[in-house]
């Protein structure tokens, strides 16, 4: 697992992708920080995090698109799948490498809180709640992206597919309001990633929410393993 993770990390920083992702993270979060906090003199940076939610929805797929698609295309999956290594470890290594790069971009958000604290009293509960929520949602986006990347040989298809999947995950709550059947609507609401996310941003740290996010990640990683396994049996 560490071998895979190290290789992927080094691949991220040998190509521009790793730097581009982190730069985009810094650029957008910096802009949102200025626009929603510095320019209006507010200490509430929830909107900065909310903005980043949508940025990551679109940009995390750029990070994950090549994870398996490129292996499938270059036939290097033959090396990985014939090595004495369990599929779970392979998938975990891939996931962790992308997640580490994601967190390198994400961690700057804490710095904004620190910067604000020099000028005014900040509500750390809300900032940390937002930070944890974004870190968890990032894990979902990374695992979903890894899953889609496993399905195809084309990085482009992987990227577009992941963006669509992320958008569907993030916006599923919209569907709840238009479904006329109450029971179905309730189920959809329970699945809403955004509602869970919103809970955190108000500074409420809910264990249920953490379990929800972690389960979603585990499901996507499990599906990824299944896809790799199914290809063997096809």
């Amino acid at each position: 697992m560490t071998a895979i993770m190290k290789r992927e990390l080094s691949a991220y920083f040998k190509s521009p992708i790793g730097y581009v992702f982190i730069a985009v993270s810094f650029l957008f979060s910096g802009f949102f920080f200025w626009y929603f906090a510095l320019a209006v003199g507010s200490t509430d940076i929830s909107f900065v995090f909310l903005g980043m939610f949508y940025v990551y929805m679109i940009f995390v797929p750029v990070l994950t698109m090549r994870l398996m698609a490129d292996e499938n295309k270059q036939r290097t999956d033959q090396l990985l799948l014939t090595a004495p290594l369990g599929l779970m470890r392979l998938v975990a290594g891939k996931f962790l490498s992308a997640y580490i790069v994601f967190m390198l971009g994400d961690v700057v958000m804490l710095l904004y809180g620190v910067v604000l604290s020099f000028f005014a009293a900040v509500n750390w509960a809300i900032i940390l709640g937002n930070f944890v929520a974004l870190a968890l949602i990032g894990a979902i986006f990374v695992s979903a992206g890894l899953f889609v990347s496993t399905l195809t040989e084309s990085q482009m298809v992987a990227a577009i597919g992941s963006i669509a999947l992320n958008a569907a995950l993030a916006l599923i709550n919209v569907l709840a309001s238009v479904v006329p059947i109450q029971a179905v609507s309730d189920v959809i609401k329970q699945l809403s990633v955004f509602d869970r996310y919103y809970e955190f941003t108000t500074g409420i740290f809910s264990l249920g929410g953490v379990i929800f996010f972690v389960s979603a990640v585990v499901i996507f990683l499990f599906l990824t393993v299944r896809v790799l396994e199914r290809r063997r049996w096809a």
Partner: protein
Amino acid sequence: MIEVRHLTKSYGPKKAVNDISFTAEDGQVLGFLGPNGAGKSTTMNMLTGYISSTEGQAFINGVDILEDPIKAKSFIGYLPEQPPLYFDMTVDEYLSFVYSLKKCRLPKKSHLAEICDIVKLNDVRGRLIKNLSKGYKQRVGFAQALVGNPKVLILDEPTVGLDPKQIIEIRTLIKRLGKNHTVILSSHILPEVQAVCDRIVVINKGRIVANDNADSLARNLSADHKLVMHIEGSTDEIKKILDSITDVERVFVGRQIDERVYEYHVEAKEGADVRRDIFRKLAARNYPIIMMRSNELSLEEVFLKLTTGDEYGGAEKIETKFDRLEKGENNK
């Protein structure tokens, strides 16, 4: 040791590999021979656990590849048809990645140095793989298979795309490795298999059509009581002389080779050796024999005979077609 029992791989109704069984012993180089699309790569992918079999079993050192894949895979070094290389890594980085991927426990520095020595990669160890020539890329793929000193080596067309000097080097290397590894090597090039392998399995359309050592494969299918000769002199006279020899059953006069030199096909009784008689009789009448050979099938011909059921393997048919084209009879 590799043991394959009734291995089958179906893609829907199509059977890419159909009920094949064979064994490769320790210290043996087994050649897997067949035309393109015969099922060689599919079989190798099943042996290495890249794809699963539909039916049947494959044992690597006694371990079933589907029962305990991780253990079975730890015995295998695999060079797929297209070497699985990461172009953004240097040779050294790549090999040490493979080293940790295979959870190798040998002393890293000396082990990798030894491998680079064996496959002659020392000059390019610091270079990016994407900048290497095809021959070097193939060698890096080979080196990757050797990491961890696996007992079993599975090599899918290891010499494809190499220049003749490199081909000879790789063949020598395989022969050397074959002494203390079990090697399975696939190829559609006969001389290669003939030069390197102890045993040959010929596969066609997913089925094994022959499984024997190289020499007896050629011998079993050849007919050494048939002779081909080039003789100078009048065809009528020579045919008469040849016909008069005891044990000669049939004589055909073939094409003209040179001025006054024709080709003759002589078929004697099975087991009879008429070469000395022919020499004496023709010498007595002063008809020089320019060339004489027994019509033993080369492995190429054996191969074509096995895979197409026809000595000339369709080559003749194409030739006739070309002849017709030349004569302007193509519309027939």
